[in-house]
């Protein structure tokens, strides 16, 4: 996955930027995997999709799971292939320390559906992140759009 710091409000050393790209990248990558790319397809269980979210954000995201996961196609999908994973980070870094990040995301994947052919899906928008109390980063907000997909079944979880 291509992750780049593109905007910094404040200041960050070069090594801190690399470290941030790696850590925020890991959080977003694990969301992409859990919600879209991994799991055994055909798939109806997306309950673990929001492990990278704060508890409150995960609750809200569950209500939007039809859009924030591959639930709309999961039942009729045999395999998912990522075509593009791109993330640009805008960082709030007062006192030379990253405190908040807006991640501009773009995920493109193809869902292979045996009889119906394949469907190309684009997920784009923003994920909002802050530091976890332990280590790493957590998603506390989202503003995400998805290209429309045909409805083939609902996620059960």
């Amino acid at each position: 996955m291509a992750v780049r710091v593109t905007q910094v409000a404040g200041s960050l050393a070069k090594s801190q930027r690399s470290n941030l790209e790696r850590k925020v990248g890991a959080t977003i990558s694990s969301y992409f995997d859990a919600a879209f790319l991994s799991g055994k397809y055909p798939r109806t269980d997306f309950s673990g999709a929001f492990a990278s979210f704060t508890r409150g954000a995960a609750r809200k995201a569950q209500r939007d799971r039809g859009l924030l996961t591959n639930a709309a196609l999961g039942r009729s999908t045999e395999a998912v292939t990522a075509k593009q994973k791109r993330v640009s980070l805008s960082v709030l870094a007062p006192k030379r320390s990253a405190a908040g990040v807006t991640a501009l995301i773009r995920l493109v994947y193809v869902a292979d559906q045996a009889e119906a052919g394949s469907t190309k899906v684009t997920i784009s928008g923003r994920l909002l992140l802050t530091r976890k109390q332990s280590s790493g980063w957590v998603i506390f907000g989202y503003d995400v759009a998805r290209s429309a997909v045909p409805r083939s079944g609902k996620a059960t979880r």
Partner: protein
Amino acid sequence: MNATPWRRRLQLARQVTVLAIVLAVTTLVVPPSTVREAPASLVKVESASEVDHQPHVLWILFLGSDARPGEPVLRSRADAIQLVGVNTSSGAATAIGIPRDSYVNVPGYGQNKINSSMLYGGPQLMARSVGELVGIRPDYVFTTGFVGFIAMVKDIGGITVNSKFSFTDAVMPGGYDVGKNKLNGLQALIFARIRTSLPRGDFDRSANQQRTLLGILNRVRSNADRPGFVERGVLSVLENLDTNLSPAELFRLAQAAIRISPSKFRTCVLDGGVGYAGAASVVFPDIAQARRIR
């Protein structure tokens, strides 16, 4: 004018024929694809947007200190006192403007103008005085001085306010007009501070402060999609306002506040009677209204 029905029928028949030919050619020329994706301009996009902020309902006290150069911002009287309630789930907000000359109980100091609370005990005492008056203790307090406010408005590229009155000031060539006014930092400061040119003085000034807050909200919302804009705005707040929030908390609060819809931004100014306490001109606030509007 007298287009005969057969002419219309002929025209319709021609259109149907052309459409049929186009469809037939398309079917023959365009090969079947295993990946179904409409052209970008035709792709219907669905979206979802949420921000997790606890608590969902929070009260923020915005204070504008009238500290002169060399005076401490946090220990000078407050010119602007706005208590803003935000519901981060519904995107609604209510601003309660409190005239600075409101004569109230300042905890530990007796009856006095509410803005003297800053002088005696800084933003914390100010928050307690406002809390006693309205019946709500603010969760967060933001305090800024003249220089910080001007810098902050400048950092977000100026604001547009909707003025109810026209009035003149040297900083605004042509004066402030009724309706929309695009303001730089200094012009925004004067708009929020001036009162002698306004019919109801302190009350109208408080309403102008709310229009200024709305102008800031509109400006930030309309630029929130620009990469780095929100982060730069939060950094500007950290540099120019005194706050009891950590940078991470402020970032989360800012992201939640951006969701406030200007159409759901309600305002009111605490009313009261103008009179004297000793030699001082004061406002005797309508306590019953203060408790009702929360």
